[in-house]
């Protein structure tokens, strides 16, 4: 009971901070939209012609996921600031559960990811992105986004607790996430990659989750990519969560 209340209070505090930093709100909301229109403009016709499909159906989910993963940089930096600023020490010296501080951070940032995802898909609607599989599938869409973000948020928390500087935090998070994007089938179809890279691209959680989101929005395979995304999330949980809890002590 008290863990849930404490987590809620701390998540509320983080969200309040987020809402107050106009710059951060603008960045988190605009960045995916700029990326969306840019990619559509540059590659839209090319990919539409090459794959015979509608690029936006794939692009919008890929960008939702990429911004969710990239949001982990903000999570890492935010938590690092809290650790260095002393406020986490204050929480630790208070008689509250150790899980609450970590939980509050994860919950608030999942809410932030959902907000960004909602805005991104909303705007993508204007350029042809549609949920065609009904309300339940749409809910599933956002559930997969949460699952995917979960992997990176815990990673961010672990990085924040192990890093020595802000630069180290953003370096350790942004490069892998960017690499993940380019080695995914989010922007470019799998068969456009060199043959030896294809297995990597297929196993990439960003590719898998994109497949799942495409299935849940415009239609396509759902079960297999969703299960693989779940597998990634479980693996990340088994590794990152105990590590985070141990580091926090």
């Amino acid at each position: 009971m008290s863990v849930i209340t404490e987590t809620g209070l701390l998540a509320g505090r983080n969200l309040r901070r987020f809402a107050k930093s106009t710059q951060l709100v603008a960045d988190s909301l605009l960045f995916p939209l700029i990326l969306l229109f840019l990619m559509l403009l540059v590659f839209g016709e090319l990919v539409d012609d090459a794959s015979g499909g509608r690029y936006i159906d794939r692009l919008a989910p890929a960008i939702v996921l990429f911004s969710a993963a990239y949001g982990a940089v903000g999570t890492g930096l935010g938590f690092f600031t809290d650790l260095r600023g002393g406020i986490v020490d204050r929480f630790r010296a208070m008689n509250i559960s150790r899980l609450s501080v970590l939980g509050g951070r994860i919950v608030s940032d999942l809410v932030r990811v959902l907000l960004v995802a909602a805005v991104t898909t909303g705007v993508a609607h204007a350029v042809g992105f549609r949920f065609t599989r009904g309300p339940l599938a749409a809910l599933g869409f956002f559930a997969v986004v949460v699952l995917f973000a979960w992997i990176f948020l815990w990673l961010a928390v672990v990085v924040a607790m192990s890093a020595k500087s802000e630069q180290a935090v953003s370096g350790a998070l942004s490069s892998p996430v960017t690499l993940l994007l380019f080695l995914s089938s989010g922007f470019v179809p799998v068969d456009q990659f060199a043959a030896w890279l294809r297995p990597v691209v297929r196993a990439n959680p960003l590719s898998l989750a994109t497949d799942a989101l495409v299935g849940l929005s415009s239609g396509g395979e759902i079960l297999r990519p969703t299960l693989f995304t779940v597998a990634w999330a479980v693996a990340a949980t088994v590794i990152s969560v105990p590590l985070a809890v141990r580091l926090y002590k």
Partner: protein
Amino acid sequence: MREEGVEVERLRKVFGKKTALEEVSFTVEPGAVVGLLGPNGAGKTTTVNCLSTLLPLDGGRASVAGHDVAGDPAGVRASIALTGQFAAVDDMLTGRQNLVLFGRLLKLDRRAAAARAAELLDGFRLGDAADQPVKSYSGGMRRRLDLAAGLVVKRPVLFLDEPTTGLDPVGRQEMWDMVEGLRAEGVTLLLTTQYLEEADRLADRIVVIDHGRVIAQGTPGELKNQVGGQVCEVRAEPRERTLRVLRERFGDVAESGGGVVTVRGADPGTLTDVVTVLREAGITADDIRLRRPTLDEVFFTLTGAKADREHEEVG
């Protein structure tokens, strides 16, 4: 076992190869204010962090308000408030939002948390800025808010880690007033500081630590005697002769920088003696004054005395 005091016995803390605390022992009686005095890196913050369960102990034992720090950390956390060296408040939130958040985390309901926040904001003279974000506060206001955050729920034991470091004289004075108010309420207080003056003013007893060891402890009066009274500074030409003349008459005379000759172990009587000695020698002093020993001199004396004792033990 004492109910509300702090007992520290042979506390030891090691970071990798560096020993932060060799052996620290002291007691804070219930309701007393003890000043932990030492230079940067002496182990003051480490001691406070060990006592507030932020760091595990590597040796020795400590109890806070009757709870063993290693055995019952939750009990310790429920009995203490900690105000750190860096104001540990959220600078994006307002003062009020901060205090309400801490109140609710300490299990006050919404209304009680709001009422307590309002009460503290008034008590700490933050009422006017209550709804401004903390980042617009002055250093002194932040510290006061930080102290208030530690007092949202009354705790029998309070740790204040360098509460006035980095504050301007006005901020320092205000902080001192707050601490004196707490002392009057009977809170058990352990306060760390680099300033002799601060420890002198606020603490019933002072524990001096250096390199992770307690090198002296006692009431401010006892310590001052141990350090040897005050220092008489003489600025006079020719300096060589001044030095010689004074050395003939006083025991502990040294030349410090800037053409100043210092006579240590001085008292108001020394001042008259110095003037007489100089007049007899026909030296006109540009400046003669009496001042308290600086922290440097306290440490010089204390560590010097300790080294001497060790020699005796060996010999």
